[in-house]
């Protein structure tokens, strides 16, 4: 009886400590990011895609973050890029996680079967290993070379890069859950295999991919910037942090640090904010 009374109390206490308060502070940067993504392009003082002044002006009253080597306002472009980078990161995360869960579920439930279904599931499992063995940036470069640099093609390329890890996480969990006694109990209670998968296997197996989603989000943003830096992401004058850093990097070597630094800081803060959301939702904060 002691166990029956103690356990819920302990759970309630733990939940209570994770409710509003200090822990919610981790959500503030993410909330600011979302606001910037939605309202940023409207609020910026200059057009983010036009030359607005002389090139290479240092940060000051007229241009808070200075101007880049083309004469575009770095502050306006850094803020406006938030929408593009977050949009690519968000869509990639949703696609990679939902498809990863689906593939992991199907592979995990079928790979020990005999016959063509089992062979196909094992084949998909090995294909996931193969894709994961190739560096993501290489896959991104190849896919964008095929489909061109646009937000949809970047999203597809990054989804292909980041999906295998999500699928493997879910597959491993499905293999564990598949042996749980409550599945047999549900079968004996009359559940069909489809109901069993939807109501028991899916909810109990998808949490590693959901926990990992904030990491996928961060990786997608970093990879978008990486591809932009290499010149195969979104092309200027479309505001995107990676290409902004690439444009500013040569100037930084000769003392014009501002046009590369501010987008780099924005990138770092964004990844930090997104990981804060992950910690808030699944961690011990």
């Amino acid at each position, binding site marked *: *009886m*002691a*166990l*029956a009374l103690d*356990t*819920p109390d302990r*759970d309630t206490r733990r939940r209570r400590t994770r409710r509003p308060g200090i822990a919610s502070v981790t959500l503030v940067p993410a909330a600011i990011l979302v606001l910037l993504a939605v309202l940023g392009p409207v609020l910026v003082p200059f057009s983010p895609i036009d030359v607005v002044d002389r090139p290479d002006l240092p940060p000051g009253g007229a241009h808070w973050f200075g101007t880049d080597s083309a004469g575009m306002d770095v502050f306006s472009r850094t803020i406006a890029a938030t929408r593009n980078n977050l949009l690519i990161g968000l869509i990639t995360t949703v696609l990679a996680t939902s498809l990863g869960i689906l593939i992991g579920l199907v592979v995990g439930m079928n790979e020990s079967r005999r016959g063509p279904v089992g062979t196909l599931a094992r084949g998909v499992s090995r294909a996931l290993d193969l894709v994961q063995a190739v560096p993501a940036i290489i896959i991104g470069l190849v896919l964008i070379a095929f489909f061109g640099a646009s937000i949809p093609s970047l999203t597809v390329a990054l989804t292909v890069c980041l999906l295998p890890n999500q699928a493997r996480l879910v597959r491993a969990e499905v293999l564990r859950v598949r042996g*749980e*006694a*409550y599945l*047999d*109990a*549900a*079968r*004996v*209670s*009359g*559940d*069909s295999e489809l109901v069993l998968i939807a*109501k*028991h296997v899916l*909810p*109990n197996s998808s949490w590693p991919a959901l926990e990992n989603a904030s990491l996928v989000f961060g990786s997608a943003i970093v990879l978008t910037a990486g591809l932009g830096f290499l010149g195969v992401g979104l092309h200027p004058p479309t505001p995107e942090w990676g290409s902004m850093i690439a444009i500013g990097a040569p100037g930084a070597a000769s003392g014009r640090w501002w046009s590369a630094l501010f987008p780099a800081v924005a990138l770092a803060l964004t990844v930090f904010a997104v990981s804060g959301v992950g910690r808030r939702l699944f961690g011990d904060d």
Partner: protein
Amino acid sequence: MSATIQFTDVRRVFRGRGGAEHAAVDGVDLLVDSSTRLGIVGESGSGKSTVVRMMLGLDHPTAGSVEFDGVPLASMSAPALRAFRRQVQLVAQDTSSSFDPRRTLRDALRKPCHNLLELDTAAADAAIDRTLEALSLDPALAARKPHQVSGGQRQRFSIARALVVEPTVIVCDEAVSALDVSVQGSVLNLLKEHCENHDAGLVFVSHGLPATAFISEELVVMYQGRVVERGPVGRVLFETEHPYTQTLVDAYRVTEGVPS
């Protein structure tokens, strides 16, 4: 209502790494019906759990057949399988993993009511409350999740899940092995009373002879995938024929302090 499950020369082979075959169950003939409390006893790895899985249609024989009222379980249609599950229910081995940790105990008990009895939620809840009260469980506990009740309570909920559809045969797979002795006694009494009051059959599978001998009328001894001895409990305990059974009985005498 009577029901019979017939094992005829059942063999179940598992293939390990490198294609090596291992017969978990080998040439087993068994008759289970709703008028008998049958105990199946044997050491770990003797094939008891495989027999249970095949008895419930969760696994199928490599050779031989398992039939319910003359129909092979392996080829049953979905409606026939539902009718079979309505009559044959399981009390699972590991109560800590036999309930979905994300769902409440009431959710788990509603399943057989919805699926097998086709009751709506209100009628299912009424049937669940009746069953829980008969098992001396507070229906309010059903709102909790499995980890929020004690092991003994969880085992009673496991029994309630089986009894709520009023089956004619209850299959218990190591149902009391994980419980402490005092809780074991109450669970065994509860199962025995239910079977006597409702004319239900029982298959009690365990590696422990004392509990099995207490609750069963007939005893089957399994060893290395085969049935090595069977008969009424008294005969198997006191006129032992097989050396393995003698080892089990000797161990029982030592642990229970029974003079030989």
